[in-house]
C-alpha cells in the first residue's frame, strides 16, 4: 500500500543540519591529534624529478613531514595509474601531485609546500588538441563501453545524393568541474585499518580502489561520505585527495586532513575534454533526414585513456537511413579528462542540435517541426523500440508554454532598442540506466523502520528521495522511516552518477521493503528487530537490453547588444520526460541546475590553456567564469507525467543530467536567430560578436 510519499515535495531531510552548519563534510570531523596535508603540484609538464630538497620545508615551524616518491609508502599497481601518486619520479602533466607536506596546521602545511625545492629534467610536451594532431588514434571503445565507431547504410553516398546538406564543425573548450566542496579527505589508520571521510560520489568504489592500492581486504577500510558538496562526475571514483591523505597518514602515523584548493581542481581531478566535432546532415526537401555523420575528436592523457563518448548522442537521437559516427583521441601531456555532467551527451548534443538548427535554416523549416518530423519510435542504433520516447511531447508542450508559435524565423527580426532578440530550441536526451545494488530494511518493535544503503547524496536530494520511496514500499508514513546512507559499512550500492542513482538505489530498497513486508505479513509489530536484505544483481542483470532514455526540449530567448556584443539570457524553459518524479522540489532543482550549467557552457566557461606552461591559467572562480544568478533572469522547468513500466520498480529515469543536454545548443541557436551570426566555438562571448560586421 502506497502512502503517497513518492511525488510529494518534501524538503531535504538534511536541510536543517546543512543550514545550521551541523552537517559534517569530509574535513569537518573533529579528530584527536589531526594533522594537515598540503598537496604540492609539479611545476613542469613532462619530465622527471631529479632531486627533492626538503630541508627548508622541514625546518619550517609546524612541518612534520614531506612525503614524496623517495619516501612514500608503496602502493600496488592498479587500473588507475593517475592514482599511483608519489611512487615514481616521472611527471606526466603539469599539476601532478609530486609531494604532500604534513604539518600541525593548515597554514604551516601550505607554507611548507612553498619551501619544497624540486629539480626536474624536462622534455618537450604537447598539450593542445588539434584536428590534425599526428597522435590522433582510434580508441578500442568510448566511455563507458560504447563502440568507437558505428555505421549503417552508406553515409557518403547518401550525403552526396541529398538535395539539402550542412557540413559544420563545432569546437568546445576544456570545462572544469567546480563543486562547492573541493575534493577533500580525512584519513586515519588504526591497527592496519583505514577510516576515511571523503568527498566522493560513491564510498563503495573508493573503498575498492583504496583496497587495491594499499593491498588490504575491503573490510579493513571504511569510507564515509555522509554529506558531499557536489561532484558533477569529478568525484565519481577515488581521486588524488583520498590517496594522498591515506598515504600521508600512514607515513606520519597520525590522522591527516587534506583538501585541494580551488586552483588545484583545474585539471588533476578530471575535466571535460575539449572537443572538435564535425557534423554532416543531409535531408530531402521535406526535411526528412537521409544521412547523419558525427565525427568527434577529443583528448586524453598519456597515462590513462578516457574517451569521451561525444558522438554517441547522435546514434539514437534522430533517424536516417545512412548514419555514421566516429571518435578519435589524442594522447596529450595533460591530466586525464573525466566525467563532467552528461559526459558525451552534453558536448555531443551541443554539436548535433546546433547542426539540426542549421539544417532547419537551410531547409526553410521550423526547427521544432524539423525535429518532430525526424522522430522515431525505434532506436536507430539498436534497432529496437524505445521503452518510451516523449521527445515530441516535450517539444510540443515546450513550444506552447514558451510561446514559440508564430516565430519569425528570419535572423535579426526582433529588436528592442539596442538589443537584438532571438529564440532557439534544442532537443535533449539521456540514457535511463540502472546498476545492481543491495539494501536492507529493518522493522523495529516500536513500529519504526530503518533502511540502510550506501547511496550518496551529493546535494541532489537523493537521501530524501530514497526515504520517500522506502516509505511507500514499506506502506508506512515516511515519518516512521529512518534512512542511513553515505558509508561503505552500509550495504553496497553504486555511485551517484550517470543519472542512475535513484533508479538503482530505489530498486534495492523496494525489494528489501517487499521482502520485509512478507516476513511481517502475519503479525503486528515484531517483538525484536526483523531485517530483510535485497540484492538486485540478478534482476538488473536479467533486464532485457532495450533502449531506455529520458527526453527533453530546451527553449531559450536571448538578447544581444548590437554595439557591444554582450549576450544576456531573457529566459530559458525546459520540458522533460524523465519517468516518475519522486520529489518535485529536488527534481526541479536538478533540472534547472543542469540547464544553468548548459547556459554557463554556452556563454561563460572556458579553460584557457597556456601551451608553454601546459596549464589552464584561469584556474580560479574569479577568472574562470561560471554563470551567476544575475545571468539567469528567468528559468522554468516542467515535466510530463510519464509512466514507463520497463524501467525499474520506482519508474524513474533520472534527472541529474538531462537538464544540461541541449541547453548550450539552444543558446547558440538563439544567438544566431538574434544576430544572424553563427558562433561554432564556445563560449559565445562578446569578443566573438563585436568584430562581426553588420551586427549593429
Amino acid at each position, binding site marked *: 500500500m502506497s502512502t503517497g510519499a513518492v511525488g510529494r515535495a518534501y524538503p531535504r531531510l538534511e536541510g536543517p543540519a546543512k543550514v545550521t552548519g551541523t552537517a559534517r563534510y569530509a574535513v569537518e570531523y573533529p579528530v584527536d591529534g589531526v594533522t594537515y596535508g598540503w598537496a604540492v603540484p609539479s*611545476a613542469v609538464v613532462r619530465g622527471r624529478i631529479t632531486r627533492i630538497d626538503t630541508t627548508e620545508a622541514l625546518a619550517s*615551524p609546524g612541518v612534520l613531514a614531506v612525503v614524496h616518491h623517495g619516501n612514500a609508502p608503496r602502493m600496488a599497481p592498479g587500473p588507475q595509474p593517475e592514482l599511483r601518486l608519489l611512487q615514481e619520479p616521472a611527471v606526466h602533466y603539469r599539476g601532478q601531485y609530486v609531494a604532500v607536506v604534513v604539518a600541525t596546521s593548515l*597554514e604551516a602545511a*601550505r*607554507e611548507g609546500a*612553498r619551501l619544497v625545492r624540486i629539480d626536474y629534467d624536462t622534455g618537450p610536451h604537447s598539450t593542445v588538441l588539434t584536428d590534425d594532431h599526428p597522435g590522433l588514434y582510434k580508441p578500442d571503445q568510448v566511455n563507458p563501453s560504447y563502440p568507437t565507431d558505428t555505421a549503417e547504410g552508406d553515409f557518403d553516398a547518401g550525403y552526396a545524393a541529398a538535395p539539402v546538406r550542412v557540413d559544420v564543425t563545432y569546437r568546445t573548450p576544456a570545462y572544469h568541474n567546480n563543486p562547492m566542496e573541493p575534493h577533500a579527505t580525512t584519513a586515519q589508520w588504526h591497527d592496519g585499518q583505514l577510516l576515511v571521510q571523503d568527498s566522493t560520489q560513491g564510498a563503495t568504489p573508493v573503498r575498492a580502489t583504496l583496497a587495491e592500492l594499499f593491498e588490504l581486504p575491503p573490510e579493513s577500510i571504511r569510507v564515509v561520505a555522509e554529506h558531499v558538496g557536489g561532484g558533477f562526475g569529478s568525484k565519481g571514483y577515488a581521486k588524488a585527495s583520498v590517496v594522498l591523505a591515506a598515504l600521508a597518514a600512514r607515513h606520519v602515523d597520525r590522522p591527516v586532513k587534506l583538501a585541494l584548493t580551488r*586552483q588545484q581542481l583545474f585539471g588533476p581531478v578530471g575535466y571535460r575534454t575539449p572537443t572538435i566535432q564535425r557534423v554532416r546532415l543531409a535531408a530531402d526537401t521535406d526535411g526528412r533526414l537521409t544521412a547523419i555523420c558525427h565525427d568527434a575528436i577529443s583528448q586524453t592523457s598519456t597515462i590513462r585513456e578516457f574517451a569521451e563518448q561525444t558522438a554517441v548522442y547522435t546514434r539514437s537521437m534522430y533517424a536516417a537511413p545512412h548514419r555514421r559516427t566516429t571518435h578519435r583521441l589524442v594522447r596529450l601531456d595533460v591530466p586525464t579528462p573525466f566525467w563532467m555532467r552528461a559526459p558525451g551527451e552534453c558536448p555531443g548534443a551541443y554539436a548535433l542540435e546546433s547542426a539540426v538548427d542549421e539544417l532547419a535554416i537551410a531547409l526553410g523549416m521550423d526547427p521544432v517541426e524539423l525535429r518532430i518530423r525526424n522522430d522515431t519510435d525505434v532506436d536507430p542504433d539498436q534497432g529496437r523500440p524505445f521503452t518510451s520516447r516523449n521527445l515530441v511531447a516535450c517539444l510540443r508542450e515546450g513550444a506552447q508554454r514558451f510561446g514559440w508559435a508564430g516565430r519569425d524565423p528570419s535572423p535579426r527580426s526582433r529588436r528592442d532598442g*539596442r538589443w537584438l532578440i532571438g529564440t532557439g530550441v534544442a532537443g535533449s536526451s539521456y540514457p535511463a540506466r540502472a546498476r545492481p545494488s543491495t539494501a536492507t530494511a529493518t522493522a523495529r518493535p516500536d513500529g519504526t523502520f530503518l533502511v540502510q544503503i550506501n547511496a550518496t547524496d551529493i546535494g541532489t536530494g537523493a537521501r530524501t528521495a530514497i526515504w520517500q520511496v522506502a516509505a511507500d514500499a514499506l506502506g508506512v508514513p515516511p515519518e516512521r522511516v529512518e534512512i542511513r546512507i553515505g558509508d561503505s559499512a552500509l550495504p553496497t550500492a553504486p555511485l551517484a552518477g550517470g543519472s542512475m542513482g535513484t533508479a538503482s538505489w530505489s530498486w534495492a530498497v523496494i525489494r528489501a521493503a517487499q521482502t520485509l513486508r512478507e516476513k511481517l505479513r502475519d503479525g503486528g509489530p515484531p517483538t525484536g528487530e526483523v531485517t530483510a536484505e535485497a540484492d538486485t544483481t540478478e534482476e538488473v542483470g536479467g533486464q532485457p537490453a532495450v533502449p531506455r532514455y529520458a527526453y527533453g526540449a530546451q527553449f531559450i530567448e536571448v538578447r544581444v547588444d548590437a*554595439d*557591444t*556584443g*554582450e549576450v*544576456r539570457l531573457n529566459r530559458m524553459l525546459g520540458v522533460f520526460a524523465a519517468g516518475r518524479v519522486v520529489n518535485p522540489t529536488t527534481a526541479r532543482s536538478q533540472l534547472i541546475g543542469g540547464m544553468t550549467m548548459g547556459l554557463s557552457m554556452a*556563454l*561563460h566557461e572556458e579553460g*584557457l590553456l*597556456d601551451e*608553454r*606552461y601546459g*596549464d589552464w*591559467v*584561469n*584556474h*580560479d572562480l*574569479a*577568472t574562470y*567564469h561560471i*554563470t*551567476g*544568478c*544575475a*545571468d539567469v533572469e528567468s528559468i522554468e522547468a516542467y515535466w510530463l507525467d510519464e509512466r514507463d513500466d520497463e524501467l525499474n520498480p520506482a519508474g524513474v529515469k533520472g534527472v541529474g543530467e538531462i537538464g544540461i543536454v541541449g541547453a548550450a545548443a539552444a543558446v547558440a541557436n538563439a544567438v544566431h536567430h538574434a544576430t544572424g551570426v553563427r558562433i561554432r566555438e564556445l563560449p559565445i*562571448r*562578446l*569578443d566573438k560578436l*563585436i*568584430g562581426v560586421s553588420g551586427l549593429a
Partner: protein
Amino acid sequence: MKAFRYHRPADVAEAVAVLAAEPQAAYLGGGTNLVDLMKLGVQRPDVLVDVTRLPLDTVEELPDGGLRIGATVRNSDLAAHPAVRRDYPVLARALLAAASGQLRNMATTGGNLLQRTRCVYYQDTSKACNKREPGSGCAALHGQNRDLAVLDWSEQCVATHPSDLAVALAALDTVVEVHDADGPRDIPIAEFYRSPGTHPERETTLARGALITAVRLPPLPAARRSTYLKVRDRASFAFAAGSVAAMLDLDGDVVRDVRLAYGAVAHRPWRAYRAEEELRGRPFSPELAARAADAELAEARPLRHNGFKLPLTRAITVRALTELASS
C-alpha cells in the same frame, strides 16, 4: 601561508611609523584583495597594519562644494551616500558595477585604489611576472592576454588596473590625500598611477609606507550629468572587459566640458585627454563621439587576444556620451 603579525595603530601617525620601521609591512583595509594574494603567496607581508579602525570613515561635504571621502569608507556606503548619488553619479555607478554586494560591504576607498592587477600570471607564483618578481619576465605578453592592456603597455608588463572606482575618480580629477613620514600631502590622481615601463612593480607614485587618508573630489557641477558604463562577460561579479566614466556639459549642443576615462585598457585608469580635446567646443553628435574615441585609441597596440577592446571601448564611448547628451 607565511605567518604574520597583526597591528592595530591608534592613529595615522602610528600607522605610518610602523610601516617606516617594518620593511615588509602592509596596510590592511577590507582585505578583499590582499588576503587572497597572501594565501596565494603573491604578497608575503610580515606585519599587517589594520587601518580600518582609524577615523577615516566619513564623507565630508566641503565648503567649496567638493567632497572628501575618507580612505576607510566602505564601497557600499560610498555608493549609497546622498551627496555622491546627487553630485557624482559616475562614482556611485562605478562602485555598484564592481564586485559583489558582500565585497563592496568590506572593500575600502583607499584599498580599492591600490588593488592589484587580476592578470592571471601575476596571481600565480609558478609563472613569470615582472610585477610580482622583477626581472622574471612577462608571461602574459605572449600568453593568454584577452583581459590585458591595449594602451601604454611595455615589453615588461601588459597588465591592466582592475578598479572601476579609480576610473571614475580619474575622470573627476580627484586628489588623493596621503600621509607619509614627512606628513600629509596631496597627489592629483593624474600623477598617482604609473605606466608600467621598465618597473611594473611600481604601480603608484606613493612613497613606501605612505597611507592614503582620503580622496578629495573637486566641485564639479557638471558631474551631475555623468555616468559609468561597464561591459563584462557576465551580468555581475566580473571585472570589466571595457568601461568608461563620462561627464558631459553642453552649451546648447556644443560641448562646453567633457571628461572621459577608460577602464580595462591600460596599466592605469586611462584618462582620455585626446578624446576630450576632440569633443570640446564642437557640436555634439554620436559621430563626433566615435571620432573622439578613435583619436584616443589611435596609438593602441592590441595584443593577440584583446583586439576587441578597441571597438568595444569606442562603442561604449558613443553610448555613454549620447545618453548624457540626451538626458
